[in-house]
């Protein structure tokens, strides 16, 4: 792929996001962009020498963080004080179950230990993929495992939200 590779990839991501919006895909900006850009290899657009520059990931994190943080205001700092303890009670089982699934994938021989564990623990995708690359593992596979998790979870959440509101009422 030429130096136009990243631009083509971004074009496919934007097209995927636009299509996702039309189809009312859950979280269409990211799920649509992933599905759109993921068609690049299928269309024969290899990324050798044309992968997105590293600053795209940093820019994406800055844009998302700024956009979200600017809408939370004082509520955010009150929440830090209020939910740290119950938050720990939520986070530990989630990480333990994700890690346990990774151990099973590795022990049964379905995957090598590195992609099995780093692809299964539900943490920051960028960090897990970067760590996999640092260990010489298949970072594309780990990215794919996290993408499956993201797409399935984001697709299931609208249904789970409706069900939770029916069960507990809107205010709990």
């Amino acid at each position, binding site marked *: 792929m030429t130096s136009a590779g990243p631009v083509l990839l971004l074009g496919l991501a934007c097209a995927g996001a636009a299509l996702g919006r039309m189809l009312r895909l859950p979280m269409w900006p990211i799920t649509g962009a992933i599905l759109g850009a993921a068609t690049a*290899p299928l269309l024969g657009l290899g990324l050798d020498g044309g992968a997105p520059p590293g600053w795209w990931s*940093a820019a994406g994190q800055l844009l998302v963080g700024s956009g979200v943080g*600017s809408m939370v205001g004082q509520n955010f700092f009150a929440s830090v004080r209020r939910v740290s303890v119950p938050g720990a009670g939520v986070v530990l089982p989630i990480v333990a179950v994700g890690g346990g699934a990774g151990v099973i994938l590795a022990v049964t021989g379905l995957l090598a230990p590195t992609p099995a564990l780093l692809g299964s623990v539900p943490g*920051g995708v960028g960090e897990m993929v970067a760590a996999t690359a640092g260990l010489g593992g*298949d970072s594309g596979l780990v*990215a794919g495992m996290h993408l499956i998790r993201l797409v399935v979870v984001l697709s299931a959440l609208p249904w789970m939200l409706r069900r939770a509101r029916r069960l507990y009422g809107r205010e709990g």
Partner: protein
Amino acid sequence: MSEPAASPASPHRAAVGLLAGAAGGLLLMWLRVPAGGLVGAVLGSAAAGSLVKAQPHPLQRGVRTAGLVLIGCVSAARLDRESFELLGRVALPVLAAVVLLLVLNGVLARWLVKRHQLDPATAVLACAPGGLSELSVLAVDEGADVGTVTVIHLLRVLLVVLVVLPGLVFVLGRLP
């Protein structure tokens, strides 16, 4: 938008929050804090938005959307044909693990609603095993308590990045 410049929903106030977010993110990236870009941007824009009393504005939604498309693009670029083939072979076990996490999501959300009196949308989103950025955005769209959802996911990402990941790298780096 026809609001006067001084109104809380003015683009100027929204821009102050966004710029402070970028500054906070760049600072934590420079300090090499794990996931510093995202964490610093959330903290910086939340602090500045609180100071200038910024209200939701279309500019913030546009910035978020652009960021999500960029992250989606970068994530997809890490996939190649060989990864797709291997992924196809492990798709079912991976899906089973995600379903297990979603069941746990439901159980933990119930605990948060009953024990800690969170509203259902906030509880479900706080326990979801998704990405910090995506779930924070979804919390805004669903009218959930964005602060609570963001804090719990920040805890998860920080636990994984600061504790679990170094441990795994240490162990995996010593395997034959």
